[in-house]
């Protein structure tokens, strides 16, 4: 049943997000071609013709502005879609259908959550891919001037040194994203309860910031405690950066995971006991 719920969840969001993602990739491609032409003109000396230089400059500027606008749109629209899908399909009229389907509340909530995570990851990937497409033009045009062997060597060193912190940071970003989504859900669910129902939107926004601040405060207190109690004396002397990095990030990821569990269980409990359609 979870797979079926997820299928409908993805279909419903795809209508808004897929065209936006395709649009961003197309604009990135156009930017890339325009940039390649710009670089080629500069190298051939053709750009010295003032008119061509100005047109190229303006066009490239507009395209980049458009591209960054689309990146902002991806971020904002993905967040809005995540919120809207939860709000409309569970708390709005569609909730009368969703909550009378023969599925558990865990399955309902999981489908929304997994769907939101998938779209967030796809959105991030589309932005990354777009940047790669734009960068590709410069690399292709200047390919003959690049020492590929040297570049590969440099990349190998970067990957070797950075892969661990990159993976840990990526994991932390993912855990934060998951906790953020679930915190939004929890805020919306608290806001639809009987006492706050008349001011749902305002209450949800205030609750989100309040809960976020509360979790932040708890995290700070815990971190101070860990810093005072958990760090062995040897560390302060040895100054092992990676050890400290792993420990801090490990704690932060664990904290985000705990946040996820609290928000998920809280939202599920409210769905079961305090649903107020």
């Amino acid at each position: 049943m979870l797979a079926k719920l997820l299928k409908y969840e993805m279909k419903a969001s795809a209508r808004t997000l897929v065209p936006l993602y395709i649009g961003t990739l197309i604009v990135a491609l156009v930017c890339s071609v325009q940039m390649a032409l710009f670089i080629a003109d500069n190298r051939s000396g053709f750009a010295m013709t003032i008119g061509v230089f100005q047109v190229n400059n303006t066009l490239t500027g507009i395209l980049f502005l458009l591209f960054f606008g689309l990146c902002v749109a991806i971020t904002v629209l993905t967040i809005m879609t995540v919120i809207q899908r939860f709000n409309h399909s569970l708390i709005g009229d569609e909730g009368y259908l969703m909550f009378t389907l023969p599925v558990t509340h865990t399955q309902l909530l999981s489908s929304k959550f997994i769907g939101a995570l998938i779209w967030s990851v796809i959105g991030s990937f589309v932005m990354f891919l777009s940047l790669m497409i734009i960068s590709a033009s410069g690399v292709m045009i200047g390919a003959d001037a690049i020492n590929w062997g040297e570049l590969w060597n440099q990349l190998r060193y970067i990957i070797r040194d950075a892969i661990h912190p990159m993976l840990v940071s990526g994991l932390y970003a993912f855990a934060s994203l998951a906790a953020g989504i679930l915190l939004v859900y929890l805020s919306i669910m608290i806001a639809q309860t009987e006492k706050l129902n008349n001011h749902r939107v305002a209450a949800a926004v205030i609750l989100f910031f309040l809960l976020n601040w509360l979790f932040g405060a708890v995290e700070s207190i815990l971190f101070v405690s860990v810093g005072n109690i958990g760090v062995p004396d040897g560390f302060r002397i040895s100054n092992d950066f990676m050890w400290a990095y792993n420990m801090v990030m490990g704690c932060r990821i664990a904290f985000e995971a705990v946040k996820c569990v609290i928000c998920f269980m809280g939202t599920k409990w409210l769905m079961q006991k305090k649903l107020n359609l």
Partner: protein
Amino acid sequence: MTALVQFENVTKQYGDKKALDNVSFTLEPGKIYGLLGPNGSGKSTAIKIINDLLQPTSGTVLVNGLKPGVESKKIISYLPDRNYLNDWMKVEDAFKLFEDFYEDFDRSRAEEMLRSLNISSGARLKTLSKGTLEKVQLILIMARRAKLYVLDEPIAGVDPAARDYILQTILSNYGEESSILISTHLITDIEKVLDEVLFLQNGRIVLQGAVDDIRAEHGKSIDGLFREVFRC
């Protein structure tokens, strides 16, 4: 035989207000029940509790012997008094959704009803009129081979000509073991199909019984009695 629905001393309170006040009733299989009462009498609250959309403040609710939950949702076909379908869907998407989630959904029966009402399966829900949308929802609900059909104002949004067809659809699509609970204000139209009625007022049941008995006892139609009991 296990009752399809059993309410025992059920109370639902919103702050100081009691939407349902110590309500008890039983719905048996094979009957059509009318849940009648003015606005704010507690009809929707009772229906939501049966469908696990609300939790009672106190009392016991059993559906087919079990607390409302996944199992009860498999046997209840519920039509709310609003559009609950996502408007990006086509009619056939809605059919597919019901087919995916309800094992008892009879696709051929749904398509037959759709043809009778001249509605295209390729029509987008957001292009349909309110009345047609209500018909589509009713088709989805009645095409299930459920044990209990809970219909909240099923004929309120459709024209009088379509009402007879809809009532006929309801009557011809429920089996002997099934029951129907209809909540409505349009009593004249549905009186002829009801076996039993429950009159709700201020969250309490003020009258309950077989339609024929009530008519004989009060010497009035159910509609006439409703107007008398709930006179403003």
